[in-house]
């Protein structure tokens, strides 16, 4: 019984304490997320049986979690809020918020538990449907409840992509990479250089993001190559070095001069009188510490109304019409030759959409009806004031990444990665080319950080070398380790937990502590110096890395396989127990080995 109730208490207390930090409507949102987490965790604990029985056995846990949440939340709105001198929440919000929170906690957890009665595949599909609903509605709920979490969640999602990419290198291929942020930087700087007015190159984001991914992949190959003969600790140290070199390089690419060596040095050495060919002189590529800013942003139809027509419009329209004509011809040929597979059709639709994205804006006419119709399909820029658009963009990138990574994992290449991770020599004997396999792991891993980097640069609108230092690499590695090395779901959870803790909870905790101290302890301290010291040091953001380290240390001691482990890695970490289990029944057979 205790085993079933304990998660209810844990979740209830964590959820309730979180409402202390945010107040207002937060209890409703937190309740729903708590229910989701609890339901996903609980479902696996039960046998598959009919839904009513499942609900019955999970009911006490769900109720306990819900009750604790509401009690703590009510305590928050009645006592704590007053104690920290916050404006009290309107009674209506308190009542409604707590009701929704309670129903969400109980409802979602019971729903997910009840789904466990279905066969495994169906259960999986339903779970995905529920999660999809939550993911889609979240930004709107967030907007309505005025919590303003979306813009911070987007940072967490960037780290989810980075974690997914690093997971290929560390989790699948078993190559400990301590400099992964280098590829993040390469993706971001590629985007910065190619789409910033600073250099007068302003390419379309939808093109640049692929170039950024490709650049990261190429550098993955280049930086991966020297590490090939290395294993374990030595590999980690070399990647650490690369992780340090790349941001320093970007910091210092402020005075680039490239001369053609033959005409400038070699021929003059032999007394020839040539004019030196200079490709570029004193070119400031990255603007050093100042960073590149502003950076162009993605644009899509339906996002916002764009500006009226410019001068280049006619050319654009001509290109667009030509492109459409070529595409139409190809489509007609494919269609009439009977090549009507869904993939081919989807390809044409995608190409048509791409043409529109690249070449519209459309000029304004003086006809209001035409203008309003054209206004809808006219691409508008993503704005920082509207995080919802960014949120869906990054969700799209994550879905694409998950799709690709799952296919990779289950492919021949994925198997080869895992064999290399297990035993490189044995893998070679199986016919696996270690060089190719490892290089592809570096390249594929880097590709996803290229996506993340491009998104990050466009989202922040500026990039600075200090963002990509060693600590970024370590945080990404923490995401992977905390979530569960080698497990896609684990890495997603790890990224969300770690980065929301960093981006949402710590700042909220800081405000909470400051307000709390101001009303309770600070007035009772007479010495102003001590008062100031207490006030300054009660800032959890200062202890960010301490808390990171502490979390990791605790995780390694309590649950080294991560929050949602990869079963192979769990098997290894708990190998002794498993072996004991297997050996025990047949120990009499007198085998050695």
């Amino acid at each position, binding site marked *: 019984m205790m085993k079933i109730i304990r998660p209810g208490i844990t979740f209830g207390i964590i959820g309730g304490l979180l409402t202390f930090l945010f107040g207002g409507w937060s209890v409703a949102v937190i309740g729903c997320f708590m229910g989701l987490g609890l339901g996903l965790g609980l479902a696996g604990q039960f046998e598959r049986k009919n839904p009513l029985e499942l609900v019955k056995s999970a009911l006490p846990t769900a109720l306990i979690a819900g009750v604790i949440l509401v009690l703590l939340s009510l305590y928050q709105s009645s006592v704590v809020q007053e104690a920290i001198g916050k404006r009290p929440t309107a009674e209506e919000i308190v009542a409604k918020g707590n009701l929704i929170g309670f129903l969400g906690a109980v409802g979602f957890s019971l729903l997910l538990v009840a789904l466990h009665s279905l066969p495994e595949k169906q259960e999986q599909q339903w779970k995905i449907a529920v999660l999809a609903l939550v993911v889609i509605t979240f930004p709107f709920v967030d907007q309505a409840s005025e919590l303003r979490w979306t813009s911070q969640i987007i940072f967490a999602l960037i780290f989810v992509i980075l974690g997914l990419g690093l997971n290929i290198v560390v989790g699948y291929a078993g190559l400990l990479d301590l400099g992964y942020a280098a590829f993040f930087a390469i993706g971001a700087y590629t985007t910065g250089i190619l789409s910033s007015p600073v250099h007068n190159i302003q390419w379309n984001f939808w093109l640049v993001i692929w170039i950024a991914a490709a650049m990261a992949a190429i550098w993955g190959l280049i930086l991966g190559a020297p590490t090939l003969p290395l294993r374990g600790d030595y590999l980690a140290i070399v990647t650490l070095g690369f992780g340090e070199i790349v941001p320093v390089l970007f910091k210092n690419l402020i005075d680039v001069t490239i001369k053609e060596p033959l005409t400038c040095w070699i021929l003059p050495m032999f007394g020839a009188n040539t004019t030196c060919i200079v490709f570029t002189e004193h070119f400031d590529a990255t603007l050093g510490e100042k960073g590149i800013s502003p950076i162009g942003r993605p644009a899509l139809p339906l996002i916002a109304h764009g500006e009226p027509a410019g001068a280049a419009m006619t050319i654009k329209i001509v290109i667009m019409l030509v492109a459409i004509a070529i595409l139409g011809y190809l489509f007609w040929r494919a269609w009439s030759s009977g090549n009507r597979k869904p993939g081919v059709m989807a390809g044409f639709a995608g190409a048509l959409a791409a043409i529109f994205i690249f070449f519209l804006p459309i000029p304004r006419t003086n006809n209001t009806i035409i203008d309003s119709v054209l206004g809808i399909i006219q691409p508008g820029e993503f704005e920082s004031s509207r995080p919802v658009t960014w949120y869906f963009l990054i969700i799209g990138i994550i879905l694409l990444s998950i799709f690709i990574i799952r296919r990779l994992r289950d492919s*021949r290449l994925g198997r080869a990665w895992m064999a290399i991770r297990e035993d490189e*020599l044995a893998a070679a004997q*199986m016919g696996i080319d270690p060089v190719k396999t490892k290089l592809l792991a570096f390249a594929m891993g880097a590709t996803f950080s290229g996506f993340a980097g491009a998104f990050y640069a466009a989202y922040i609108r500026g990039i600075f070398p200090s963002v990509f230092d060693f600590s970024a690499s370590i945080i990404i590695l923490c995401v992977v380790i905390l979530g569960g090395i080698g497990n896609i779901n684990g890495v997603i959870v790890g990224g969300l937990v770690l980065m929301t803790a960093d981006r949402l909870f710590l700042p909220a905790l800081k405000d909470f502590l400051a307000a709390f101290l101001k009303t309770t302890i600070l007035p009772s301290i007479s010495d102003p110096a001590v008062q100031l010291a207490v006030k300054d040091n009660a800032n959890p953001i200062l202890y960010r890395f301490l808390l990171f380290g502490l979390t990791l240390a605790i995780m390694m001691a309590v649950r080294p396989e991560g929050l949602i482990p990869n079963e192979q890695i769990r098997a290894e970490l708990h190998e002794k127990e*498993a072996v004991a289990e297997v050996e025990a029944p047949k120990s009499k057979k007198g*085998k050695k080995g």
Partner: protein
Amino acid sequence: MLELKDVNTYYGNIHALKGISLTVNDGEIVTLIGSNGAGKSTTLRTIQGLIKPRSGSVVLDGVELQKLPAHEVATLGVAQSPEGRMIFPRMTVLENLEMGAYVRRDLSSFQNDLEHAFTLFPRLKERISQKGGTLSGGEQQMLAMARAMMAKPKILLLDEPSMGLAPILVELIFDIIKKLNQEGTTILLVEQNALMALSIAHRGYVLQTGEVVLADKAEKLLKDPMVQKTYLGVE
């Protein structure tokens, strides 16, 4: 089928194989016997391409192997059940066997071969979803052999399949080696257990400190006084 000509292999400055020449014909079991450090495993590692010989040639069906990396040798039809087994500890038995078939592009007969492996090693079928690392020593040896067989190799290299196993299991393993050979697999067997090896092999080579000192039919080697004295413990 497989021919080694005057192969010299070094570990750094140590001259491990001093001009080894041997042949394995189609359908044979050929065994290499010798004491520790005689160069038996080194010979197999040289064939497989894990170490490059400094001189000499290794030819399989007319293709020179000595310059190729290990994974290419594997794709040409050389599979090894290595010393110390080297199974993938965190993969299940089935996944290990699937890795064995990695070199094969045509997987249409994969299921049949899997079934066949399980008839030879019924023990593995019972353990099919268990992690390789949790198997007992004998089971790991069976897995290593079955995994090598899944590649459908032209020649199967077996390195000390009896090492560390109880006598009853050793007999079982040798029965299986015989059976594999009767089904048409060519086998190069490295063994310290000379009596067992010579009793199933067609021909044998005796290695001493990196040199072939005797080469003959297996039954003749069994009667050779030197072999009897040194490797079979007969006074």
